[in-house]
């Protein structure tokens, strides 16, 4: 059995701000196997973004504080090394795409320069000219072996790239970099890649920008790709295009993906496994078919129920009574119990329940599917909820 690529174990992260201490993540544990897509779904503020940022350690450390837990990527605990060593893992090990493509591409640099930078970083690492994350070795973060990192063409290029002339058209550019950039742009189904090389991000449409972002992340061939709400800022039609693209790419590349979204529909389409988060905790986890078909946590069930249905022409929209708790003042016991239809006395008194496996579903489950687990003590009664 292949070791899981990513294992988050008991991660708890607090934000310490003037007003108090916000428990952004409480004891979150997930695993991700190579080649799988794990979807994390939940409302705004539930901690899914924090989780996404915590894995490659790009949380702003002064307000954020890691209380406990580990993040094990390819067998290496990323929280056991000093933070300055992490750049080795990022890019070629773990890649990330963000929600707002205008904000996530540098507005001062042209498309070509940004893509070239990513390609060159990867090329130099693969060629041994720059240090690379090697999990199989005893010291995965070995900075000593390579010659001093010299500024590659792409690494200094963008300093002048945005001034007047268009570097992308100059013949001096080494072919391999330009060739790869075009190849990845074609991969994301951009029909005339040459035409956008010299453009700035603000000159592209939203869908185009997001494709460029995806191309940039993929061009570094990461083992794990984290997608933090990649389509939430796009129009619905563009959203569909980008999602279709991503699904097609999934078939072509072997990267495992951590897909974050608040949109249940998107998760149901994209993910193999799903984790449901609420108030900083993982409340349910399992294969996508089981989570959506037979949810075993009252929150999941209520979420699914709250989706407006095309088939109900009348009646009020269902919503979950109450509101999301303030992360600095979490309820005692199970964090969902104040809003839960199944709540009993012990739900509010006893410590928050851990994820426990529910009875295995009879059909449709493959060997690679993770067990279906829920953080509700009374998961068997969830089915009976309206």
């Amino acid at each position: 059995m292949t070791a899981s690529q990513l294992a988050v174990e008991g991660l708890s992260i607090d934000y310490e701000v003037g007003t108090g201490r916000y428990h952004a993540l409480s004891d979150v544990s997930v695993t991700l196997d190579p080649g799988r897509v794990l979807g994390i779904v939940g409302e705004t503020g539930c901690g899914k973004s924090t989780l996404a940022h915590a894995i490659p350690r790009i949380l702003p450390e002064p307000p954020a504080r890691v209380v406990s837990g580990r993040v094990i990527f390819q067998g290496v605990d990323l929280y056991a090394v000093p933070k300055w060593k992490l750049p080795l893992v990022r890019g070629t090990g773990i890649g990330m795409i963000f929600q707002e493509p205008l904000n996530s591409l540098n507005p001062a640099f042209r498309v070509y320069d940004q893509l070239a930078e990513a390609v060159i970083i990867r090329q130099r690492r693969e060629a041994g000219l720059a240090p690379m994350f090697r999990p199989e070795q005893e010291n995965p973060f070995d900075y000593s072996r390579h010659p001093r990192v010299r500024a590659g063409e792409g690494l200094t290029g963008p300093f002048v790239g945005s001034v007047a002339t268009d570097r992308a058209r100059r013949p001096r550019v080494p072919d391999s970099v330009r060739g790869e950039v075009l190849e990845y742009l074609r991969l994301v189904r951009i029909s005339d890649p040459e035409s956008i090389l010299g453009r700035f991000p603000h000159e592209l449409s939203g869908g185009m920008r997001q494709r460029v972002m995806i191309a940039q992340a993929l061009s570094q061939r990461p083992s794990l790709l984290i997608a933090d709400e990649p389509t939430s800022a796009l129009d619905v039609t563009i959203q569909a295009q980008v999602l279709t693209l991503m699904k097609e790419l999934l078939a072509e590349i072997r990267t495992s993906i951590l897909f974050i979204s608040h949109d249940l529909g998107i998760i149901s389409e994209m993910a193999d496994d799903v984790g449901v988060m609420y108030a900083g905790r993982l409340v349910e986890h399992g294969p996508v078919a089981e989570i959506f078909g037979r949810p075993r946590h009252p929150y999941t069930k209520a979420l699914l129920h709250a989706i407006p249905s095309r088939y109900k022409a009348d009646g009020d929209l269902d919503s979950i009574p109450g509101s999301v708790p303030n992360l600095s003042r979490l309820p005692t016991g199970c964090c969902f119990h104040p809003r839960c239809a199944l709540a009993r006395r012990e739900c509010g008194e006893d410590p928050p329940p851990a994820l426990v496996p529910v009875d295995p579903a009879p059909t449709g489950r493959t060997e690679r599917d993770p067990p279906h687990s829920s953080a509700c003590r009374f998961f068997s009664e969830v089915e009976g909820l309206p």
Partner: protein
Amino acid sequence: MASKTPRVPVALAAGPSRSAIVRVGRPLRLLWRVLRSNPLSLVGFVLVVLIVVATALVYLAPAVIGVHYPLNQPSNALGQPPSWAHPFGTDPIGIDIYSNVMAALPVDLSIAFAIAVFALVFGGLLGLVAGFWDTRRTLGGAVSVVILRITDVFLAFPSLILALAIAVSLGRGVPQVIIAVMLTWWPYYTRLVRGEVLSVKHRQYVTAARVAGVSETRILFRHVVRNVIEPVVVYFTMDIGTVIVTFSTVVFVIPNVISFPSTNTSEWGVMIQNYQDSFSALPWTVLAPGLAIFLTVLSFSLLGDGLRDVLDPRTRRAMLETRRLEPAAPVEKAEEAESAGPAAPVPGTVPDVTGPS
């Protein structure tokens, strides 16, 4: 467009504050936030308070802090370095430097305030007019353009030189220098206020007020001015220090400047000029007033810098994310300038870039 940095949930609501109680409490609460945000601001505030207290004492009860009138009395203690009897030493003819320096405190401060307030009021009014009524082909538009051109001319003028020229022409005295600096100072406020008015004018709440039928003057005073005041006040606080420095520099530079007619006032720039030749032999004669200027300006600058940090929406957001600042109470307005892409210049902090903007 919220950035997806996992953000601590903070409550900010839109809409200017309404009730009178809140209006009065607002500057106090602001001050409290400023002080809490940064230890340097606290230091600055304490120093400013001390300076104000000292000024009051010099004015009302000078003997309490050791200032003895009449000033400039020669004594037997010639050219003494600082000691208990003479904390800042004495000059070549035995005049106590300490008394002079402290006596100059209310003088310099009130001069600086007078200049700054004049510049603020005069320049600010012009800026309001130029910014608010600048539609083309109206009387207001023409006036605006005239104001702008005049301001441009004054701004292109090197202020130190202009002040120098005016002061020398009017007669080489301190009051003339005051007038000179006043005349060179107001354009900065005009430009600042105009920039702010221009950016506020097009905000949605102004349009909403117009649509609701609010009269133009009411709009001007309630909405525009209220929102322009903040950055202007911040600039003003920092400006006091700059005025002091510029003023004393001009006074120093004028050869044989005539001090005040009265013999019982002192002024730091005058002191420095008087004692500059004996600097090597008796450094304290120049260092004392120099340090007085330095400390005064530093205090105001520390306070003003802290104030600016709190009010500038860009740095305020950064402070929200560290421990140092609490999120604004829900009644306060939300002014998060959505800075997508390159940091947009905050109007007023960056002078009017008339070309690409």
